[in-house]
C-alpha cells in the first residue's frame, strides 16, 4: 500500500503537469475561439450553470418596485428597449437579426414568454426572480457574452422601466409595439 508521502508526491506532480499542460494549451493557439464554433456541451453546461448561479446569488436581494406595471414605465422603457435591445433581443414580427445569427451564445428572443426563451426558476416566486434577474443582467451585463452593462450610463429607474416593458413585450402585437416604442416628437426634441 502506497504511503501518504508517495500519494502527496503524485498529487503535486499531477498538479504541476496540469498547470504546464494548461499553459501549453493556452499558448499553443489551438483553442477554436471563433463564435461560429460552438462549445462542447459540457463546457456550455458549465458556463451556463456558472452564469445562472452567480446571477441568482447576487440578484436575490434586489427590491422590485411596486409600480412595475404602470403605463408610464411601459412608455419610458419601450423607447429604450427599441433603441438599445431590439437589435439582439428582437421585436414582434422579427424572428432573427444579424446579431441573433452571429452572436454566440445567441441572445434570447425576449418576445417569447420566459419559459420559452430562458431558464425556469423556482415554482412559486419564479416571476419575481425572473424580474430581479432581468434587472441585474441589464445593469451589470454578462462577461464575454455580448451583453453590455447599462448601469454605468443609465439610472436604476431607467433600467426598471425597461424591465417593466419586458414583462409585457411577449403579449404585444407589431402595432402596439410600434406605438409604445416610437419616440416621436414628444421625447427628447422638445425639452425647453
Amino acid at each position, binding site marked *: 500500500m502506497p504511503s501518504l508521502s508517495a500519494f502527496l508526491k503524485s498529487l503535486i506532480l499531477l498538479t504541476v503537469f496540469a498547470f504546464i499542460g494548461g499553459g501549453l494549451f493556452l499558448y499553443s493557439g489551438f483553442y477554436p475561439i471563433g463564435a461560429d464554433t460552438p462549445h462542447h456541451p459540457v463546457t456550455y453546461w458549465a458556463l451556463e450553470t456558472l452564469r445562472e448561479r452567480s446571477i441568482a446569488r447576487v440578484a436575490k436581494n434586489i427590491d422590485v418596485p411596486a409600480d412595475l*406595471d*404602470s*403605463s*408610464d414605465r*411601459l*412608455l419610458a422603457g*419601450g*423607447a*429604450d428597449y427599441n*433603441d*438599445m435591445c431590439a437589435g439582439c433581443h428582437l421585436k414582434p414580427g422579427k424572428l432573427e437579426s444579424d446579431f441573433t445569427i452571429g452572436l454566440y451564445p445567441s441572445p434570447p428572443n425576449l418576445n417569447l414568454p420566459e419559459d420559452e426563451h430562458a431558464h425556469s426558476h423556482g415554482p412559486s416566486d419564479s416571476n419575481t426572480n425572473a424580474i430581479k434577474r432581468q434587472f441585474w443582467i441589464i445593469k451589470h451585463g454578462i462577461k464575454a457574452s455580448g451583453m453590455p452593462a447599462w448601469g*454605468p*450610463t*443609465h439610472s436604476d429607474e431607467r433600467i426598471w422601466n425597461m424591465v417593466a416593458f419586458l414583462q*409585457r413585450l411577449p*403579449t*404585444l*402585437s407589431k*402595432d*402596439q409595439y*410600434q*406605438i*409604445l416604442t*416610437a*419616440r*416621436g*416628437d*414628444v*421625447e*427628447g*426634441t*422638445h*425639452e*425647453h
Partner: protein
Amino acid sequence: MKTLLTHLSIVLIILSGHAYAHDPSEHNEKKENPKCEKMKSMDHSKMNSDDPVMQAMMKKCMMEKSMMEKSMHHDENQSEAGPEEEPAEDKAEDEHADHQH
C-alpha cells in the same frame, strides 16, 4: 500638492459628467412617430381600459396629437403674421419669447 489635487478634481468632475450624460435624446437619431391611426383597426373587443398597455398607448397618442396641434398652431401664427409686417429676425425672437414651455 493643493494645485495638483485641484487639477485632478476638475478632470474627475469633467469625466464624471461625461459618464452620466446619457440622455434619452441621444437615442433620437432615427426618430419615428407612433402610428396612432393603427389603434382604430385594433380589435376593440380585446381592449381593456384598465390594461397598462392600453393606457400607455392612449397616453402616447394623446401626447403626440397635442404636440402636432401645437406645432400646427405655431405654423399658422407664422403664416398669418406675414413677412412684410416686421423683419424676419425680430419676428423669430418675438415668437420665442411668447412660446416658452
